[in-house]
């Protein structure tokens, strides 16, 4: 079975407005802000929802445009390599038979828009702008070839489905709300199993199915205090951490034998 390969094209945006948000040639400008740029994971962290606010600034040349804007927000978490495996029945038991490696893919991915993506832009634009889980670039290594495959590829769709079940991938086509024709907000739900690191937020504004302008912002998810201390020590001082943990175990065992001593 040969998967239809769609060769990886670097996400190069050809729109001038996209690259130079404040350029004079642009009719619209996006101003956005995330409710919290630093999400802290504390002992009682169990998921959090961030809010992204923004507004579309229009200059005089835009006055001609009377239609409604469409907005697509893509939040991508720290990138990592993942493996998707498929089980098959061999010799009467189910074993991992085939696998695909996904290279440098976002550990978290949330795509929000104000209406279904097929109404926002044509399939061609959606693919070029990587709008939606079906169009985001997920590079696989197949043998020596590096490529993304069609959205219906069984490994790709299983990967997206499993990440979605864990709340790590998400496509919500009604999550962006326009409060006024130019003022919008959307939620960014972070699950309990949140990956630690920097999250890029990509906001793209569409008018009449074409990219009008885009902007980026970011936030980070960090461990603080006790969580950070433990995680750092475990990572950077493995031996000391191991010895301390073993000592803790021995102390607990010894205390228990003293407390519960009956002879």
């Amino acid at each position, binding site marked *: 079975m040969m998967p239809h390969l769609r060769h990886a094209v670097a996400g190069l945006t050809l729109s001038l407005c996209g690259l130079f948000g404040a350029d004079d040639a642009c009719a619209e400008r996006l101003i956005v802000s995330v409710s919290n740029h630093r999400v802290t*994971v*504390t*002992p*009682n*962290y*169990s*998921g959090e929802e961030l809010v992204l606010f923004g507004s579309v600034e229009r200059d005089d040349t835009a006055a001609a445009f009377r239609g409604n804007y469409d907005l697509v927000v893509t939040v991508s978490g720290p990138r*990592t*390599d*993942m*493996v*998707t*495996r*498929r*089980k*098959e*029945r061999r010799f*009467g*038991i*189910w*074993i*991992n038979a085939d*696998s695909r*490696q*996904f290279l440098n893919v976002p550990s978290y991915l949330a795509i929000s828009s104000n209406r279904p993506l097929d109404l926002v832009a044509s399939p061609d634009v959606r693919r070029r702008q990587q709008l939606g889980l079906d169009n985001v670039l997920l590079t696989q290594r197949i043998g020596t070839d590096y490529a993304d495959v069609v959205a219906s590829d069984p*490994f790709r769709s*299983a*990967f997206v*489905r*499993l*990440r979605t079940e864990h709340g790590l991938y998400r496509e919500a086509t009604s999550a962006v709300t326009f409060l006024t024709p130019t003022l919008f907000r959307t939620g960014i739900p972070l699950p*309990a*199993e949140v990956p*630690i690191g920097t999250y890029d937020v990509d906001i793209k504004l569409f008018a009449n199915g074409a990219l009008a302008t885009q902007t980026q912002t970011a936030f980070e998810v960090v*461990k603080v205090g*006790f*969580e*950070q201390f*433990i*995680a750092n020590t*475990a*990572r950077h001082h*493995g*031996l000391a*951490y*191991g*010895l301390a*943990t*073993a000592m*803790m*175990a*021995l102390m*607990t*065992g*010894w205390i*228990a*034998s003293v407390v*519960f*001593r009956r*002879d």
Partner: protein
Amino acid sequence: MQLYLPIADIPVNVFLILAMGMAVGFVSGMFGIGGGFLLTPLLIFIGISPAVAVASVSTHIAASSLSGALSYWRKRSIDLTLALVLLGGSIVGTILGVLLFTYLRTLGQLDLVIALSYVVLLGGVGTAMFYEGLRAIARARRGGNPTLRRPGSHSWVHGLPLKMRFKRSKIYLSVIPVNIIGLLIGFIGAIMGVGGSFILIPALIYVLRVPTSTVIGTSMALTLVTMVIATVLHAITNHLVDAVLALILMIGGVTGAQFGARAGLRIRGEHLRLLLGLLILAVGVRFAVEIAIRPDDLYTVRDAGGAG
């Protein structure tokens, strides 16, 4: 009460973990085993990655086997010489096991090997113990002598060279089978994430004819040392020991073990073996079912470099 685990990177309910530690501690106190073969699958079941579960359970077993070993030490029922000879083989076995563990992880077949070894070992040991327990009960019903095994009976194992005297156990035995058993326990422990006393105890009793008075204490002393080594090794190589998870588990574990030990004293030995056999068999069957029936989801996603 939810608590975010710093290494496992997921929030868990503290009372659930505490209860799991207590339940497994109860079982381990009752039968004199570490309980890793119960705790590791339980932790994986609640969503902790297999590698973190294996690493943190070893810390938990270190704590519970120390409190057990101390009380056996006071009763003078630990054969230190025997434990040391076993340990020699066990360290080599652990290193070999860790190497195979790493290799299988790159192949993507670690889950299968863990499941298969649970099925084969737990199924085998569980069936044997269950059968032996039933026979002992039947013998007791007929009014016969419940201890038919004479400690003096010899097998080919006792004909091997390099003999050594183990004073506390009052046996005179070749170091070769002792080292081999230690090696196997270390190897199995590293692969399955268990202390291995559920295999060590029967091996000491049935193969080496170690008297029951020193078996459990010696097994606990060996488990204590190997699990401390395993904790430090896991911390250095994988950075996956979750100290917070381990602490909650061990607090539950040592408490549960006290009640388990008291309950164990009130149950007759053959009934205890029957129960333990059933328990071990049940875990083995659960793993057999898992690999024999079609899984709900044929696909799994894992971090390429990380857990499991």
